[in-house]
């Protein structure tokens, strides 16, 4: 996603400092780091461990438990595609097959530099307008092949 800052220890330390006094600080800190850098750099783990007085293993355990936290930065568009039951009933798996056949894109398998990252999610709460997705955080309902093609085209032609 565009707009993410490059990894910066001083900035990360400041974010951790700002969040450390909140009760249950780990998640808000990790969210803030990912918000700022687009991912959670492994260099942040010892910083968080020290600030919260817990072990590095514990911090790693938290980071790896939650699906949201990315280990590497992404610079392309992010399409979170819902593949839960309601969207299955409206053909989301056909869209996945279409992405593979037409665009050679597989969900959750793109390299960090790819222009479009398709990530599997389970439910976006837009089930009356399935298939649903989030493109860079913006909701899309009644997703179809034509729209998918346009999303891929736009991502690939972005500067």
């Amino acid at each position, binding site marked *: 996603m565009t707009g993410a800052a490059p990894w910066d220890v001083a900035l990360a330390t400041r974010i951790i400092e700002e969040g450390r006094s909140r*009760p*249950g600080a780990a*998640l808000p800190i990790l969210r803030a780091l990912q918000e700022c850098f687009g991912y959670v750099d492994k260099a942040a783990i010892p910083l968080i461990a020290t600030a919260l007085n817990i072990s590095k293993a514990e911090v790693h355990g938290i980071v790896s438990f939650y699906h949201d936290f990315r280990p590497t930065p992404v610079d392309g568009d992010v399409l979170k595609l819902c593949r839960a039951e309601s969207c299955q*009933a409206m053909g989301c798996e056909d869209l996945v097959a279409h992405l593979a056949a037409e665009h050679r894109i597989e969900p959750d398998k793109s390299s960090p530099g790819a222009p479009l990252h398709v990530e599997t999610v389970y439910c976006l709460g837009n089930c*009356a307008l399935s298939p649903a997705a989030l493109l860079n955080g913006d909701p*899309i309902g009644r997703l179809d092949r034509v729209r998918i093609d346009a999303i891929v085209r736009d991502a690939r032609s972005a500067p």
Partner: protein
Amino acid sequence: MSVKVFIPADSAALSVGAERVAEAIAAEARRRGLDLAIVRNGSRGLFWLEPLVEVETAQGRLAYGPIAPGDVVSLFDAGFLDGGAHPKAFGRTEDIAYLKNQQRMLFARCGIIQPLSIEDYRAHSGLKGLTRALEMEPKAIVEEVVASGLRGRGGAGFPTGIKWRTVAGAVADQKYIVCNADEGDSGTFADRMLMEGDPFTLIEGMTIAAVAVGATKGFVYIRSEYPHAFRTFEAALEKARKAGLLGPRILGSNHAFDIEARLGAGAYICGEETSLLESLEGRRGQVRAKPPLPAIKGLFGQPTAINNVLSFASTPWILEHGGKAYSEFGLGRSRGTQPFQLAGNVRRGGLVELALGATIRRLVEDFGGGTMSGRKLRAVQVGGPLGSYFPDSLLDTPLDYEAMLAAKGMLGHGGIVVFDDGVDLARQARFAFEFCAKESCGKCTPCRIGSVRGVETVDKIIAGVDRGGNLALLRDLCTVLTDGSLCALGGLTPMPVISALDNFSEDFLADPPRVAAE
């Protein structure tokens, strides 16, 4: 005075172009030199009509939908600001059968008011429940909720008042209110819709709970898949603080209460209450063994009233009108109304609030209008990914806690997902295990390992490998998960699987797919 035009800013409406419609209407009005005020409301829940544009007229609010930006010029040409006829006109919104045939209590304001206007909220009976609660003894508030018969709307169906009674009776320096807004079940969106369309109702409900049990601090745990709901709710909290609805003296009383919104990080299991508490405390979202109950030892080890969005949000109505009035709706031991959510392959998907006890068929056929594809309906999954798949022959089952249990299903959070005859229930059973494997917190073995074994076993059945033996093994595995899992994820994953086996056995016995020759 300028004409009021309502265009929802609900994320479902936005997902089908409400923003572009709002821009197009504003631009066209400027071009024609017309004075109109665009109000960004929540959704009425008629998602099949979104983007739904409403115009305020002397006859009431008139509906036009679904509107695309390309329809806007023709709307103005038809004189829609004065209720002019148009192919997409539906007349008075209140008279649309889909809305008229509902019993809207909890969602009475959603889609009508401006979500972030406290004035609007007050003008539509907002804060009446809390005002009354503040005149009562805390104990009497709890008993009012007990009398209503309200049961946990998150899915477990535990009586809300009894839970509050336990928290109220616990002695501690600090008690907490925690709202579970980790609405992860596929086919459900009521929590999201309420937080986006009528957030003060949730704030009011949590505040009533705080006064009742003696808590001063509340948390709302919102899933990260709901970025829009999170932003709206945070904005609502800010307004509530400014208006004195939250803070050291709520509505001028001697009660202090504040709420903090926290964002999840993409883990379905955090919808399980003890896992949610772990996550709020800053750890992996692993479930806790119960007892101790969260009501006794919950967040940070303190007594905690943890409820779903809809449970808290039901209490302002109960306090305003009385528990007895609420309990007059419903069937058997299932009292009050339930916002059902119609989703999947359905023609008219949306939110339908009805007294508990309506049949699945009434929802799917009368409200839903059958499948979206126009093909034959084959299965309906009720209650999210851990709920049962029902065939047509069971659609007359009433949607209440006990009747659903008797039909080997559950009401869950009220999600209803429709499938046409293209569905393969063996694949759906496989998915139930796959989902459980991905989302398991890993704490207990039946769920962590059993889910993976389940996928493998269903794969063998689909491939035609020793079907008799593997079908028996599958049922045995399901018994282990049901009886041996620590929480509802492992404990209920067998529900979709067994219902698929029982009601759609032919799908497990179809010819195995032929492997393509290399």
